[in-house]
């Protein structure tokens, strides 16, 4: 190796920033260090239990548990609140529509809107359940890098086609976002201002169309690149998980809590 060249290589190496390990994860706390496989299993069981819960008290317990997990994961208030608002924009519609009942009379236009208290309690139940699941997902899955979650899915024997699809989807989501931003900028520098008019709708339709066409082209090139490197159907993953005692403990405690919740729900104790 010539001296100048090795210096160039050394300089190129020096400019490297330290490799961030949790760069697309939000958490720094103990939850972030848990094995993603343990977190996936627990969050799956928890979501199932919450989805099946039918009493508001049970769902409220779930929300409390979820809040505890979020606090334990130390995600930061800003992220937590912004996502909480996003989820509850959807549940707000339930509160808007569910408490009203439309009743049909004799005539074709004989409609009346009546207040329905059952709808209100249903809206409450769904809101609590949705938030309980969302909080647990945020605390447990949001605290691991996305790629680790995908790897954990593969290790948990989720079909490899599905995992490959997730991996490629996440990889190219970023490329598509960049492409979208470039197109938006190209529109902006030519004076495009979105409004409620046909021109805007047409432009957005074209933008969407171009993104679709480009994605199709790209998918062909990516497949070619995979073929060039001998792709034969296997999407390889490199192992880098290590199960620790804390993970076993986490699974045991979570299992116990879930069992107690399930017993409370289905043991016939009256909640009313």
């Amino acid at each position, binding site marked *: 190796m010539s001296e100048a*060249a090795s210096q160039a290589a050394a300089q190129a190496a020096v400019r490297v920033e330290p490799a961030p390990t949790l760069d697309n994860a939000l958490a720094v706390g103990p939850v972030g260090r848990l094995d993603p496989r343990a977190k996936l299993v627990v969050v799956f069981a928890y979501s199932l239990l919450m989805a099946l819960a039918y009493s508001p008290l049970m769902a409220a317990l779930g929300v409390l548990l979820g809040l505890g997990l979020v606090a334990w994961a130390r995600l930061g208030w800003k992220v937590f609140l912004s996502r909480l608002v996003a989820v509850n924009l959807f549940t707000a519609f339930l509160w808007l529509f569910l408490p009203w009942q439309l009743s049909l009379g004799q005539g074709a236009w004989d409609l009346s809107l009546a207040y329905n208290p059952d709808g209100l309690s249903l809206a409450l139940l769904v809101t609590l359940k949705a938030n309980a699941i969302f909080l647990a997902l945020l605390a447990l899955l949001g605290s691991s890098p996305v*790629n680790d979650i995908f790897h954990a899915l593969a290790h948990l024997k989720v079909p490899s086609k599905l995992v490959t699809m997730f991996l490629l989807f996440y990889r190219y989501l970023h490329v598509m976002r960049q492409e979208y931003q470039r197109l938006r900028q190209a529109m902006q520098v030519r004076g495009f201002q979105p409004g409620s008019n046909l021109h805007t709708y047409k432009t957005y339709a074209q933008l969407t169309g171009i993104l679709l066409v480009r994605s199709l082209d790209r998918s062909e090139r990516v497949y070619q690149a995979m073929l*060039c*490197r001998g792709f034969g159907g296997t999407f390889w993953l490199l192992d880098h998980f290590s199960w620790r005692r804390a993970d076993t403990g986490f699974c045991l405690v979570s299992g116990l809590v879930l069992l107690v919740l399930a017993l409370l729900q289905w043991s016939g104790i009256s909640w009313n």
Partner: protein
Amino acid sequence: MELIRLEGVSFAYSGRPPVFQGMDFALSEGQRLGILGPNGAGKSTLFQICLGLLHPQQGRIYAKGGLCQGEKDFRALRRELGYLFQDPDDQLFCLTVAEDVAFGPLNLGKGRQEVQRLVEGTLNSLGLGDYGHRLTYQLSGGEKRLISLATVLAMQPKALLLDEPSTGLDSERAAVMERVLDESNLSWAMVSHDLGLLERTCHNIVRLEGGLLKDLP
């Protein structure tokens, strides 16, 4: 020894004028060929035909003297000819750098330990030793380009098909790439607009024009 030869190849994308009509091309071991040509001259198309990614309407493709007829023949050929894509975002489809570099060697059936050594060795040779755990979508354009080269080199090919390899590289990284290529015992065909790059890295240069390869005037 001749690695690849195209004979009388004609190719057209559907509904467009032909890119090649009766074109010949060959690359032998030990050869370092530069191909200069304007945009849209069919430089990338040429490489894609060589590797069986596009199929010509006419003409034959020979790998090491044997006629390539189906996907199976091209699979074998792709082990020997590494293709560096023009857009690194096409080439880097894994989430982490180490996985991407390991993808090819694992497909070739190498053992995990050997693959790990290959990945580390290849990244080190490009001055990217500590990039293994980086996420591919967070790299800069130049970094992506060098990692793309690493993914190709890790398959230990005999020759490379390089499609505009210096695009997006700053002068330092371009120097690293030129050094690594120069110190290797690889043969290659390199496509570029950059005559200076071709003159520094290639033994002879041809021009792709009007669907034919011609000697430089």
